[in-house]
């Protein structure tokens, strides 16, 4: 770890972090408010049989319970995009982007090992991801309070909810950084990371709409992100372990690959 690099990284991202934090807080507050205001009405419409049951579920979330609405907000594409700003965007550009711009050369000319550089950037990325998920948790509390359903919120499970999300987006960030250390240009690293996230997200969402595709869901990291289950008091160790294993494997690859790579002069 290098403190100067860590502080510089945070300083350079501070405005982006603020924007993402506010946006995620607002978004995460929105669905509990909608639940508190219209939840009963929606439930009656669904119970009338007008809408097929599969369509009332999206990624394990719904709008008829507080835990369901928080889960819906957390797995919604808007949430995914906001969380991916750091988990994918920053992580892939952290090394490959600097390499493409030529600034990595100035950085690595200092007495910092490549491993220390990587670990510092990993720590910075994970701290961004952690902050973004903190906003999600904060939004759930604020939204529940505004919607008048705070008494339904399992506040004691919120740290586990944060941890589950942190492990999911942490694993994605670790994959992004592993791609970043492996390429000289940003586009292949970004392409791989975005591709992996989109495919995994598609598999998970597809399984919720189409029962025949449920067998594909375990191949998606999003399948192990279970906000509703956690808020209802059930926690599977598998949901924490699997993203953690993926993250550790990606980190191990990056620690192996980055110090061994030749960094030729930028073209």
């Amino acid at each position, binding site marked *: 770890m290098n403190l100067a690099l860590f502080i510089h990284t945070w300083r350079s991202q501070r405005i982006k972090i603020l924007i993402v934090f506010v946006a995620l807080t607002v978004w995460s507050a929105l669905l509990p408010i909608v639940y508190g205001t219209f939840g009963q009405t929606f439930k009656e419409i669904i119970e009338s049989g007008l809408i097929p049951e599969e369509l009332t579920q999206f990624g394990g979330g719904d709008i008829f319970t507080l835990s369901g609405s928080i889960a819906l907000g957390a797995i919604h594409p808007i949430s995914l995009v906001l969380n991916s700003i750091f988990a994918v965007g920053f992580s892939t550009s952290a090394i490959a982007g600097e390499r493409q711009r030529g*600034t990595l050369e*100035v950085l690595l*000319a200092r*007495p910092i*090992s490549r491993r220390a550089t990587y670990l510092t950037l990993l720590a910075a990325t994970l701290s961004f991801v952690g902050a973004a998920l903190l906003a999600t948790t904060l939004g759930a509390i604020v939204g529940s309070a505004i919607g008048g359903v705070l008494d339904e919120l399992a506040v004691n499970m919120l740290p586990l909810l944060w941890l589950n999300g942190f492990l999911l987006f942490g694993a994605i960030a670790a994959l992004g950084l592993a791609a970043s250390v492996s390429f000289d240009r940003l586009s292949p690293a970004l392409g791989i990371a975005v591709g992996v996230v989109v495919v995994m997200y598609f598999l998970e969402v597809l399984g919720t709409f189409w029962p025949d595709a449920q067998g594909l869901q375990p191949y998606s990291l999003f399948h192990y992100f279970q906000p509703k289950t956690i808020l209802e008091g059930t926690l599977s160790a598998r949901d924490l372990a699997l993203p953690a294993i993926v993250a550790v494997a990606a980190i191990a690859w990056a620690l192996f690959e980055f110090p061994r790579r030749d960094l030729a*002069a930028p073209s």
Partner: protein
Amino acid sequence: MEAIVTAGLTKRYGHGPRPIHLPGHGSAGEIRALEELSIEVHEGEIFGFLGPNGAGKSTTIRLLLGFLHPSAGSGSVFGLDIVRDSVAIRRRTGYLPGGIALYDTLTGERLLDYLADLTGRPPSRRAELCDRLELPAATLRRLVRDYSRGMRQKIGIVQALQHDPELAILDEPTEGLDPLMQRAFYGILDDLKAAGRTIFFSSHVLSEVERVCDRVAIIRRGRLVALEDVDALLDRRKRNVEMRVLGQAPALEGVPGVSSLAVSDGRITCQLEGDVGPFLAAIRDSRVVDLTIEPAHLEEAFLELYHDEAEVAG
């Protein structure tokens, strides 16, 4: 003591089959960026590293700093191995990359602070360097993205030298500097040398290598073709001689050091190498009305070396 030692340092890229054979490169899909480079750079000297674009200068520097891993051979900086002790080497080194890229969203001052923080040593020479390179505080408070090419180069020089490193590795350091700033930069180099610092000066600008360096290595297609004192290289250089005489032309055939002799209508041209004594003795009795002996320049020595090498290779 030697600041830099390389022994058979070699860097090759690629091992896959390549359908096209590139002249001067390996045949089996292998690009030989550097071939068995063996040099020694003494502590306290300014060592010139000359070669055209693509000769292997940047590859050598990147090997010394640990950006690349050698395919064969070894190297050390201050006795530290370039592979194992890369971080320790960079702690004692300042590096100016060729065509340096900077963080555009920072101010010049913030950038220098950040790079000093990363180096972990106080920027003890920054004020002096900024003063000599005419980088006032007002300029340093502006964003790097607003800097001209010359100002970026000045910032590059300051970041490489601000912590007073024992070894400065400078890749094309005067690129983008105007003549006045080039002169100021040469003055900085002179002071660094006087302070016992070692400078590894990579360039393809021959006049500046001639101006500032004690010794020079010339590299071509990844191979070392010459390594000697700049003065010795210049002594070996053939001077161009032109003179006009009245009456009988002097007999210059066979005079030691004289070659390429041509005589027509009292105008004599030739090339002169080494000691000028025998030549002056041979023209002593002639009525010389005009005589020009052009001083030797490194550029010509360089071109001669390249020409000779090309002939050998051909």
